[in-house]
């Protein structure tokens, strides 16, 4: 570490931290042991534990331990919040009322990949304005790091960037960098930025394309970094916002209502061994550059090769190098968006699954802190637990099948009463275990509701006491229905990953429009419905009482198609909002920045879309036809001296483009032309000079359309 060690804030003493962790792990251990007792007793009742039952028991321990981790974290968080908060927080290192910590040069970086351009740049505008209002703008520069590989997207980004710079007077402060080769995806994108400009900045704030952070929150992050020179990374806890569909609204409600106790609990036991979630975080640049360049894993994708989920690993490497990683869970003004539907959520999981499974390599890496190993393991388990759960349920069915074939003592083990240290409790053993599991799953949610409801001002931020309780009940029902669907999705993803089926970095669909249609839902969930039906019918034939035990799982699977469609509907989301359901404080009392962004986006989406015939190549149209856009685009390209052969090739491409239209060029050829400054200058001149008879019909239409849409001398630039 090369940072000054003077005036370092003294955080928790090692002995106290050990005690906290001992409490956490002991809670997990005790809960898991108790549940395992019940389970083992249940399996034992038919006269011992056979091979199948041992497998069931081991699976149960693994799965229950995971539930216990969540419960223990929530309970510790509840304890912390109840006693007025934890003094051991990164946010408590600065006295926000009296201290004015001098800031340092900070880059705000936003990697983008074929995202909604309006959302990206309007979001950036809001962040810029908010930061400007703090009066500390001189410390900050903004970077849009584009990896977009669609011509339309690229040109729209350039246009939006130029216009944003002009409108907010941000020339020389807001920068746009487009990579020619998208090597190593997001991690490579950020690394490329660091190699070019990293030395100029002490910190960087990493945003996602849908992130919003207020100026105050960014200034606070920098101040905390300045005050804690041993800290290498501070992660904030972004709130989910702008949910329109029922699914997104439920997710953001759950995130807002339940997360405080989980986050407080997480901070309680992890302290400076925190994690990095990839965005809405501040990073000390130099140590990040020194220690967090990621090597490839052994083997090739999907297991090996490039590390896809880079964030957890980067946090572990920072910790390994001795830098603190903190979770600023109580900092306000940090937001992100969630997926609008169940299917979009599954698509995102498909990507995350492969990345998280790669972490299995790193769990035992030398030099990593135990807490980081735990984070990595939990990341792996987030997906691996699903096929294990499925296996547990399938084996349980087989077990019941065996018991039905050869019942012992004329009754099933599930119907027998529970025994504790030899004393019989007049509750069926299986029911006791079921209730215990439900308690662990739902008590944190119930406590969260009680915490909010007991204070009228807090309840009002969620729409009032009644709506909070109703929304929670609905959320619990829907999340119970969705759990088995996620189980089957993730089991499939894990299986595909194991078979070597890689995942591509697809753009997440943000902002639901009309939701999932029947065709998409049936194709996606048809297999799950069929599986649920077969399983349900066979278990009912086998043993009706077992069917009823399975019914919550079966209901989710059988109803997956209609549930997926219903949850994806924006109209139902709007109804729920009007009815006061799933409201969050960000909706009831929207911060200025979010209100502003909503207004700006509404303005943006009013603009007329290009006509159908021109839509696919509208970016190219603008870059060739419009003098300003052409100029902005060319000004951003590097001057190159191509060889004679490539000049000839480009001349041929230009000729084809103008005489045959862009439809005859491949995306690769279009991108090649767009990357060649000389070609773009020539194309602009040739298009306006050539007689229309020598142009393709597509260009003639484009010129007519352009003249209609743009009133000279106003530019056609994005307004």
């Amino acid at each position, binding site marked *: 570490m090369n940072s000054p060690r003077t005036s370092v804030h003294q955080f928790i003493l090692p002995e106290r931290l050990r005690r906290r962790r001992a409490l956490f792990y002991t809670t997990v251990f005790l809960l898991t042991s108790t549940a395992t007792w019940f389970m083992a007793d249940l399996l034992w009742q038919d006269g011992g534990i056979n091979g199948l039952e041992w497998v069931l028991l081991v699976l149960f321990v693994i799965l229950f331990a995971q539930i216990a981790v969540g419960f223990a974290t929530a309970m510790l968080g509840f304890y912390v919040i109840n006693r007025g908060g934890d003094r051991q927080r990164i946010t408590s290192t600065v006295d926000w009322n009296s201290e004015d910590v001098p800031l340092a040069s900070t880059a705000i970086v936003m990697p983008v990949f074929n995202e909604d351009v309006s959302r990206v740049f309007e979001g950036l505008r809001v962040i810029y304005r908010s930061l400007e209002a703090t009066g500390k703008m001189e410390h900050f*520069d903004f970077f849009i790091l584009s990896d977009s590989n669609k011509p339309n997207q690229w040109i729209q980004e350039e246009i939006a960037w130029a216009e944003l710079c002009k409108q907010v007077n941000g*020339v020389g402060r807001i920068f746009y960098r487009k990579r020619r080769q998208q090597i190593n995806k997001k991690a490579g994108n950020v690394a490329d930025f660091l190699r*070019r*400009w990293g030395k100029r900045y002490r910190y960087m704030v990493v945003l996602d394309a849908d992130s919003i952070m207020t100026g105050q929150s960014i200034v606070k992050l920098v101040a905390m970094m300045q005050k804690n020179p041993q800290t290498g990374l501070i992660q904030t806890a972004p709130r989910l916002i702008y949910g329109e569909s029922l699914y997104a609204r439920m997710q953001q409600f759950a995130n807002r209502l339940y997360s405080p106790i989980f986050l407080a609990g997480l901070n309680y036991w992890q302290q400076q061994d925190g994690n990095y979630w990839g965005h809405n975080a501040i990073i000390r640049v130099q140590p990040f550059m020194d220690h967090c360049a990621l090597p490839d894993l*052994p083997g090739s994708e999907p297991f090996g090769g490039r590390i896809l989920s880079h964030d957890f690993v980067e946090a572990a490497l920072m910790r390994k190098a001795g830098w603190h990683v903190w979770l600023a869970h109580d900092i306000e003004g940090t937001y992100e968006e969630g997926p609008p539907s169940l299917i979009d959520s599954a698509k995102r999981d498909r990507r995350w699954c492969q990345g998280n499974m790669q972490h299995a390599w790193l769990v035992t890496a030398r030099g990593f802190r135990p807490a980081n190993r735990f984070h990595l393991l939990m990341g792996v388990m987030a997906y691996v637990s699903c096929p294990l759960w499925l296996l547990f349920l399938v084996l349980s069915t*087989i077990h019941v099948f065996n018991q039905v074939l050869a019942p012992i003592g004329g009754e099933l083990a599930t119907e027998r009463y529970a025994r504790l240290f030899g004393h019989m409790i007049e509750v069926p053993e299986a029911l006791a275990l079921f209730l215990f599991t439900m308690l662990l799953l739902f008590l944190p949610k119930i406590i969260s509701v009680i915490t909010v409801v007991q204070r009228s001002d807090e309840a009002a931020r969620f729409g009032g006491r009644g709506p909070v309780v109703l929304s929670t009940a609905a959320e619990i029902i829907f999340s119970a229905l969705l759990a088995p669907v996620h189980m089957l999705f993730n089991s499939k993803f894990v299986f595909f990953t194991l078979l070597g089926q890689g995942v591509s970095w697809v753009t997440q669909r943000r902002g639901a429009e009309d939701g999932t249609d029947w065709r998409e839902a049936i194709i996606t969930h048809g297999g799950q419905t069929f599986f649920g039906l077969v399983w349900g019918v066979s278990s009912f034939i086998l043993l009706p009482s077992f069917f009823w035990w399975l019914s919550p799982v079966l209901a989710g699977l059988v109803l997956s198609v209609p549930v997926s469609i219903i949850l994806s509907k924006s109209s139902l989301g709007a109804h729920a909002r009007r009815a006061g359901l799933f409201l969050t404080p960000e909706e009831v009392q929207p911060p200025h920045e979010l209100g502003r962004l909503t207004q700006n986006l509404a303005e943006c989406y009013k603009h007329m879309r290009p006509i159908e015939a021109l839509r696919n190549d509208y970016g190219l149209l603008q870059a060739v036809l419009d003098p*300003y856009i052409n100029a902005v685009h060319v000004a951003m390209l590097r001057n190159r001296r191509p060889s004679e052969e490539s000049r000839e090739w480009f001349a041929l491409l230009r000729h084809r483009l103008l005489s045959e239209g862009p439809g005859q060029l491949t995306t690769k050829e279009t991108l090649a032309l767009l990357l060649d400054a000389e070609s773009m200058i020539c194309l602009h001149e040739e298009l306006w000079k050539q007689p229309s008879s020598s142009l393709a019909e597509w260009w003639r239409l484009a010129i007519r359309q352009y003249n209609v849409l743009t009133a000279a001398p106003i530019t056609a630039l994005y307004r």
Partner: protein
Amino acid sequence: MMDEWFATVLKGKNLPPDRIATEGRVALLLCDGPQKWPYAFLDSRTVPDEFATAMRASEIEVGPDMAVSSMVPREIDLGPITEAAGETLERIEKWPVLRLAMLWALFLGALFGIFYVTR
């Protein structure tokens, strides 16, 4: 004509000839020329000083001056077990037949397991 006009207005910026027109258009856009000085464009006799100054000051900056540095990946010591697993995996990847055989073995194992537990 337009190139000449831009060359005159932007004189002193030492732009390469093929870039004068594009840089000129960018400058015109950034200084809001068409809105603020609607009659000045292409007028060689009465170019307002303010407009000419704004044109010369306006240029696009895609990034600040580069401060190139290296960010070299360092090997992560995965530990002895994981290293051995990694080496095995890399070996398997070189022998696709072995991979297929392992998949078959896995399938057979699953079949055997199901057979065993349903007896």
